[in-house]
């Protein structure tokens, strides 16, 4: 549960429909997210959860519907635009830059804030050097926070999966986002790793007030840390409310147990 006071609506998804050729990924999805809250999206596999996240930050463009973020309404979003507006995300399959070290991967998260031009960077004295050091300090704070100091120069490809997930989170955090979209951040982790990840997520929400939207399969985690939950099944919304509301929702129970509709 978020320790902060939950604020006004920061994200409103309005009647989103998305189809790939003949496959309908999402149909008429509407819900909202309030500032500072932890909102979970759950549902069986193939329900469209990742597609929904992809629509929110512009990787996919829905055929119908609009997205309202912080008083601006969009029919079309681009990933770059989303980043500029303060939306960061992690990926289910880890989209880390395999050729770079942990430090460099997280540093890429600072790209939006790096201003110096090519010429200064080539000479690397003066503004470019100062900027590089400034951002290095910020990134080191994130590295401390995620407890991955020992690995900062290691190429990410060599790290175990759990640590790679932390780097993915670190890179998103480096963007100093207003809203963080997490796509199955705890997939493939053992109990200890999950506890660490929960701790990190709640700390981020607590300290920086970052709004969290996360897709998660572990019901224990969902019930524990989220303020409100959205349930998807076959691309449609079948539940929306607090964890308790959703836990007792007949449709949700049917969806998970696989009763034919």
């Amino acid at each position, binding site marked *: 549960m978020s320790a902060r006071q939950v604020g006004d609506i920061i994200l409103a998804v309005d009647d989103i429909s998305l189809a790939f050729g003949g496959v309908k990924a999402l149909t008429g999805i509407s819900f909202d997210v309030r500032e500072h809250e932890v909102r979970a999206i759950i549902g069986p596999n193939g329900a469209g959860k990742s597609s929904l996240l992809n629509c929110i930050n512009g990787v996919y463009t829905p055929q119908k519907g609009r997205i309202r973020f912080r008083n601006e309404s969009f029919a079309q979003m681009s990933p770059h635009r989303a980043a500029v507006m303060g939306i960061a*995300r992690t990926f289910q399959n880890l989209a880390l830059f*395999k050729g770079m070290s942990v430090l460099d991967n997280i540093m890429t998260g600072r790209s*939006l804030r790096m201003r110096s031009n090519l010429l200064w960077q080539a000479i690397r004295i003066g503004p470019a050097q100062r900027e590089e*050091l400034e951002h*290095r300090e910020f990134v080191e704070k994130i590295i401390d926070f995620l407890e991955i100091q020992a690995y900062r120069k290691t190429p990410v490809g060599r790290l175990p999966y759990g640590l790679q997930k932390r780097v993915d989170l670190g890179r998103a955090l480096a963007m100093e986002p207003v809203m963080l979209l997490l796509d199955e951040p705890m997939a493939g982790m053992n109990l200890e790793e999950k506890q660490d990840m929960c701790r990190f997520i709640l700390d981020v929400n607590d300290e920086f007030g970052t709004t969290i939207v996360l897709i998660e399969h572990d019901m224990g985690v969902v019930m524990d840390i989220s303020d409100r939950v959205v349930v998807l099944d076959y691309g449609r919304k079948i539940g929306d409310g607090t964890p308790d509301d959703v836990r007792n929702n007949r449709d949700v129970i049917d969806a998970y147990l696989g009763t034919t509709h």
Partner: protein
Amino acid sequence: MLYRENGQFKTNYRADQQIFPILQDRIGIAIVLLIAFVLVPLTAPEYLLRAILIPFLILSLAALGLNILVGYCGQISLGTGAFMAVGAYAAYNFQARIDGFPLLLSLLCGGLCATLVGVAFGIPSLRIKGLYLAVATLAAQFFVDWAFLRIKWLTNDSTSGSVSVAGLQIFGLRIESPEQKYLFCLAIVAVFALGAKNLVRGAIGREWMAIRDMDVAASVIGIRPMYAKLTAFAVSSFIVGVAGALWGFVYLGTWEPAAFSIDRSFQLLFMVIIGGLGSIMGSFFGAAFIVVLPIVLDNLPYWFGIPVDTALASHLTFMIFGSLIVFFLIVEPHGIARLWSTAKEKLRLWPFPH
């Protein structure tokens, strides 16, 4: 034992970010620079300078430029020869048409013209990648080949695109003897290598590598693929253009479009692959390899006492090149540079096995 980093702790980020953080490396590079700038010009025979070191330096520079595009940013280009040609001919035009135009400025302007052409032909990279982009860059190669042959204005109205320069000088110093040419190229290459290294370890370098590794994720973080790709093409073409101008002015003296044909493009690509994609040092390794190999192959039979005619030698060179490319791709896709850093890793532990 020799290569231990013990005791070399960094107490601030600035120290941690040096190009050569290990003391032994700094000593090593100092020795290399000393040899290159002082020992070689004083003692090297003319043949070594003229036929090996000067082409090595200039081609290293071109390979460096190509490596930025292909190795760091992951955009394939088969049109490098064309950009070298643009650099060479543009520099020639500045030098020949404007009286008293400084040499260095001609070279840089040549590079800038190459940049414009490079960015123009890099625009397709915003929509296509891989093999398709390779074909697009081939369009650049063949179009430029034709342009310098047929468009008289571009070559200052020379016949068949053949031009020449003479009497090079900088700040009153002549650049005529092999030693002078060598030092001139060395200075330029050293400056560009430093600049390139700073770029690739800085913010833009990270953007390039992000685009190379996963461009969708890069845009999600806020990196603009368009900016990153076009700057890669721009910087790369600039360096390649200057290299082309050097090739024409300093090495060849007189040249025509065929000096920058598709064979040159393939040759540079081989240098970058064999030397190591995504490595500044790799560009030098690759260039050294490609420059030295044909000479070794030409002379090897004589050293062994077996006479081999030149045609056969050139066919064998083709075969060996081809097999080496395949060999490197299978065994060490990151090229000689990776072999070098693996050796250094082993050296850190030496004489212990692990």
